[in-house]
């Protein structure tokens, strides 16, 4: 759908509740300001929207603000360039059989060297569509670009450059730099060697777990059993033979237990008190202050009643639910969304946790008041 100036003025009148003539004059003034500023070689920025300026060739340019860029590119947010593996050369293949030296068992040294190399030629920032790096959900590239691997690839590439520009580097650096494929295979070897150690590690972890649990058990026992109870227990053991005394002991213990319950009750009350809903979250009721964030759209329907019906079902399941009307291609659609989140990455993280098919069929949108 195309929005021309007339339509835009109508929308602005609706939004600002100002007179049409006033909106029109304000819009013309804004356009004039943008062009005047650009003519003077200055840029005019509309915060949260973008920057207008003249480029070297004299064309008016517009740089969208990061916020707008991210919102527009929400589908692909967090996707990074993936380096395609080059064909392996035989020299590298031969070196794969070399054992991993003892002085660099964890490959830390290689990584440190790579970090020291500085920037490679590929400017990865150039492809950073927004400031979202940790949101890989819904990412068609996900299978291809595991973060760790891409880091390794980047570092390997940097090392290649280092080898190319400084051939007299130390032999260690050279061997690390000759081929990223070798480095990758080294990593694999390391992982396989660690997998061989797994049974030993598992046993160690299990033992540690048992020790921790036992420690925890004793600590809990110490904290929750009063000295009186312990004394009673001792008396029980000592006086086990005369049943009458044992019964007395049991009755003596009962009030203690009750006391404990009484003591615990206030704590339970404080925890069960209905706490104020957090501003952001997936469950509960809509919080007004959370409406400056993002929400996960699960349905986009033409029928408002159907949208409300589905929203009701989702609400019954405990979700923060909202129905919003949007005009897309000239038609009004009603979007059913859940949750309120402060950022797109957090929304995406929660979206990935939703039950199927919502975990794959959703998109993030900014909440509009």
């Amino acid at each position, binding site marked *: 759908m195309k929005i021309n100036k007339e339509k835009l003025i109508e929308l602005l009148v609706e939004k600002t509740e100002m007179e049409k003539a006033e909106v029109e004059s304000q819009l013309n003034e804004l356009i004039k300001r943008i062009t005047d500023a650009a003519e003077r070689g200055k840029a005019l920025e509309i915060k949260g929207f973008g920057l207008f300026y003249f480029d070297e060739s004299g*064309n*008016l340019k517009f740089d969208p603000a990061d916020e707008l*860029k991210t919102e527009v590119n929400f*589908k*692909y947010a967090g996707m990074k360039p993936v380096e395609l593996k080059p064909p392996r050369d035989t020299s590298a293949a031969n070196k794969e059989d070399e054992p991993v030296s003892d002085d660099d068992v964890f490959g830390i040294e290689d990584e440190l060297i790579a970090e020291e190399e500085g920037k490679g030629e590929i400017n990865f920032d150039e492809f950073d569509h927004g400031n979202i790096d940790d949101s890989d959900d819904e990412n068609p590239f996900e299978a291809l670009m595991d973060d760790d691997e891409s880091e390794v690839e980047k570092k390997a590439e940097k090392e290649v450059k280092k080898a190319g520009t400084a051939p007299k580097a130390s032999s260690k650096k050279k061997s690390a730099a000759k081929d990223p494929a070798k480095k990758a295979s080294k990593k694999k070897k390391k992982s396989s060697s660690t997998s061989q150690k797994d049974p030993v590690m598992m046993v160690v972890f299990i033992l540690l777990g048992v020790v921790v649990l036992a420690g925890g058990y004793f600590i809990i026992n110490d904290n929750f059993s009063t000295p009186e109870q312990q004394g009673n227990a001792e008396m029980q053991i000592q006086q086990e033979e005369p049943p009458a005394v044992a019964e007395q002991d049991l009755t003596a213990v009962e009030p203690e237990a009750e006391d404990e319950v009484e003591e615990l009750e206030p704590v339970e009350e404080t925890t069960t008190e209905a706490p104020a809903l957090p501003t952001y979250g997936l469950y509960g009721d809509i919080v007004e202050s959370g409406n400056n964030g993002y929400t996960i759209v699960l349905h986009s329907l033409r029928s408002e009643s159907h949208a409300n019906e589905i929203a009701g079902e989702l609400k019954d399941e405990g979700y923060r639910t909202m129905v919003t009307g949007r005009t897309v291609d000239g038609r009004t659609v009603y979007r059913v969304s859940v949750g309120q989140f402060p950022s797109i990455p957090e929304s995406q993280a929660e979206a990935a946790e939703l039950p199927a098919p919502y975990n794959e069929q959703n998109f993030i949108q900014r909440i509009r008041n």
Partner: protein
Amino acid sequence: MKSKFINAFKDVLREQILDKNTVHLDGLGQFEVVHKKQTQKKYENGRVAMIPPADVVEFKSEIRKADEDK
């Protein structure tokens, strides 16, 4: 210029752009969302990187710098 108007201008344009609508302003230019397909990029050292797809805001200007027209 009223800040109320600026805020409304920003919000309305952003909403329209996010709804994939093309916004054409006479005397300024046209805003639209363009989809960029994923591409392969070859570097001088022979390495090849796959650039992910992206939706970007594109602005087609209607005006040029006055001295450039002359």
